[in-house]
């Protein structure tokens, strides 16, 4: 199971990084989204894996539970990355509408006058 999770994290990270390095905004957004999935699972896995041990306290005292703290951290991280993604989407839309171009790299504009100085 651990291998599956680790390889899933790795795959999503690889996919995310690859897309993040693309030249248009949309794939970059997708890449960052993939990366945030990957990192959320990564963070979650830092509490180690366990099955059927949800950290919901039961009335029977001897139950054991999975580590709740990473879960709480991941929740926070998910929410934050949601906000960030939303902002990213909007800014990329704004940049596209302003520039009529969704390339993410900015070619420096050098005028003749600039070259002269």
């Amino acid at each position, binding site marked *: 199971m651990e291998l599956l999770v680790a390889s899933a994290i790795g795959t999503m990270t690889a996919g995310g990084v690859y897309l993040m390095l693309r030249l248009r905004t949309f794939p970059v957004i997708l890449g960052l989204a993939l990366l945030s999935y990957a990192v959320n699972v990564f963070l979650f896995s830092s509490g180690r894996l366990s099955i059927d041990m949800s950290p919901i306290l039961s009335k029977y005292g001897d139950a054991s539970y*999975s580590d*709740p703290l990473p879960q709480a951290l991941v929740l926070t991280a998910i929410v934050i990355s949601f906000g960030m993604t939303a902002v990213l989407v909007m800014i990329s839309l704004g940049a596209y509408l302003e520039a009529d171009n969704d390339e993410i790299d900015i070619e420096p504009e050098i005028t003749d006058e600039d070259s002269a100085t």
Partner: protein
Amino acid sequence: METTGNFLFIIALLPFVGALIPGLMIRAGRNATATFTAMPTAVALILLMTYAPAVLRGEVIQAEVAWLPQLGLSVSFFLDGLGLLFACMILGVGLLITLYARYYLSGEDPVGQFYTYLLLFQGAMLGIVISDNILLLLIFWELTSLSSFLLIGYWKHLPEGRQGARMALAVTGAGGLAMIGGMLILGNIAGSYNLTDILQAGDAIRASEWYMPALILILLGAFTKSAQFPFHFWLPHAMAAPTPVSAYLHSATMVKAGVFLMARMWPVLSGTDAWFYIVATTGLITMVMGALIALFKDDLKALLAFSTVSHLGLLTMLLGFGTEAAAVAAVFHIINHLTFKAALFMTAGIVDHETHTRDIKRLGGLRHLMPITFLIGTIAALSMAGIPLFNGFLSKEMMLEEASHTGWAGSQYAVPVLATIGALLSVAYSFRFIFHVFFGPVRDDYPAKPHDPPFGLWAAPALLVVLVVLIGVMPFIADTVVASAASAVTGADLDPHLKIWHGVTPALFMSIIAVVGGALLLMLHRPLDRVWRAAPRPEAKEIFDNLVAGCVSLTRRITEATHNGAISRYLAIFTVASVLLGGVAFMGGGLAEPTRELLPIPAVIAVGWVMLVVATGCVVVMHHHRFRALVLIGIIGLSISSGFVYLSAPDLALTQISVETVTIMLLLLALHFLPKTTPKVSSTGLKLRDGIIAGAAGLGVGALSFAFMQRDISTISSYHLANSYEGGGGTNVVNVILVDFRGYDTFGEIIVLGIAGLLIYALMQALLDGTSAQRLRNTDYSQDRSKDRHPLMMVVATRVLMPIALLVGTFIFLRGHNQPGGGFVAGLVVAIALLMQYMASGFAWTQARQRIEYHTMIGFGVLIAGLTGVGSWVFGKPFLTSAFTYVHLPLIEEFELATAMLFDLGVFLTVLGAVMLMLYSLSRIARYAGETVNVEPMDYDPANRVDNGPEAR
């Protein structure tokens, strides 16, 4: 021997305080500003004079206050003979320059600015010569560079002024920075930055392995400032400054700072071969070369500038000799050079002022038209030439005397011969100054009709030439001053006797050769000038300009190649750095033995894994089809959520799936306005590169997680599990952590969401106010569309589904503290419920029916969460301390009330408000792009059908 002198603070401070006044007197005339400039100078000079007797007796005046003890920097001044001599020169000449400039500058120039800069410069110079702390000295040193930059660039509209100023700043600034290094090393060796301590530590310093670096660095500072070869080239270009500036900077002050420093450091640094060969040689070369160039300069000020370079070389050479006699000669020549050179600059200024030219070739015959100027100029020039009865002769003789018995690398003749040549050239250009300007026939083509200037303009040089003659005739009057200064330089108790006649010495013959040879050379000037002009020689300014231009273009190329706006490359570098450094870090340590047994892999879970991996791969491969990629992302989200369920994280599953849905909604909304496909522009090489980087990152992260998942560790969360119910009042530990143990994180998190909402709203407004609005209006987004906007079935279904979804949201909110759920998921569920309604009947239609201010909702959310936290202050508890109780009401089962739920309500409202505000913003954009708002909830209500009968169309 040491006396405390608190006046030193006042003396040092006066010019700076005084500098404020002229700068503020923008409207005042020249007289007023000049007066206010002269006053602090004069007061400082008077205060200085009160110490003169004591200093000349050999006492050292000291004053110190702490400034930055952590650094060893204190505001400490000391005044010994050398300091006194220089301080007098700086203030005295400063006064004369103030007077001279009053008449020299025109009323149109910003005179206030000029005097401010002048006083700043004066203060900086004064600081250098009386600092007892070398760090303080460095401060003043850099200040001279800065203030001279302003002075040289005073006529800012002239390119020469700007370039000269920049060049001076670059060269002297570079030297200053080198000197910082050298001084810090000195201080390090001596264990103190106090000059008096350092001067005691000469032996230790010379013995240190750091002596050479320190020496070179400090000399770099001195040589650049004093325009020694090969750094001499900035000085002539500084002549673009108004003449008073040149007279001040290049006779008495700025360029002498380097000489002063060498003199100051003489007891510490001199006496080694390195010192002799570096300093004396540099001085010698500079002297000869400066003089040679001066001879062929037609610009009066340029001639004087190179003569200054030459004389500075002379001084440097003398200090480089390292003997006490040479030091005495140097000190004496400093005085003499000051007097005649300042007078000469002022004379040149007068000529320029009156004739409107400084070009020697256009001058001549002025002795009849400007007799006073002629007299002053001639006396000063004769002194410069080293003609007896003028002070220049005396110190030149001493110099030649020292040179005559100085050997250089085994040669007995090198130094004397070159020194004589230097003197000879000096005579030649001095005579040229006299003869080519004042003698010869009166011309009728001067750019302006020359006559002697008003008294105010010639008073200052006149005073100086009086000194030239007085010292020249009665050298003993300078005895005390020279003795005291020279003693200070050498650290020995010297008592030199200055006299005109030294007997028949080698120096006398060398002097005679120089005068005769110089006169002959001047006669040959015309042919020699032609040769000079034809000869190829390196033009220092050109070299410097090319150097700077080269540096600029190189740095520009580096900068623009590295910061080329390609974020994709920045990110690649970032990723590579992370992977590499992470790998390096990992390799540097070991791993404990694995302690956990791996969990089994059920087949269905393996299927989930396949879904996730295949979907990820497909997103990468198919990302050019943007919509398709979004569908595939849906699979990934679904797989992860299911995985969370399987791996005991129900809260995560709920959050993940709802966040993902809302995210996809936003992406779809944005994609509507974006291109629907991504062009395939990446080259195979780029893809390969990115593939390798991505693979490495994936491998690294995967391996890392695999490494820790195999190893157990004790964590702090056992506390959370143990205290969640007792202390936090909830059985859902994750939720209790979120709203209680780490409620502060959650507080930050909802603020992030609130800001996101605000930001998106602000961004939308900015877009609609800007050029985007035009683009939105002009683009047709409605191609190939279905004609039914608000299909009947969807509208009707939503009428039932939306209330149910709202109820589910409420349910999830209420139970979150004890079961999976909570404010955040509830907020999203409610948002999704509303989204259903929007998708059915449109945002605007829905919005029009229920005016909910989403701004307000976010605000309330944040405020409720914040105030819930603040509320605990009332009970003397820290922020976000929770309280809970179980309530029993008749007929109803026991239920819990917790402040944490109020906090969660804040979370709920913020989430809901933020998502809605985002949707609202996107919907605004869409309406701007030409969407119309429907008036009915559905496209057509069949109840309105007129004819119900079937009728073929």
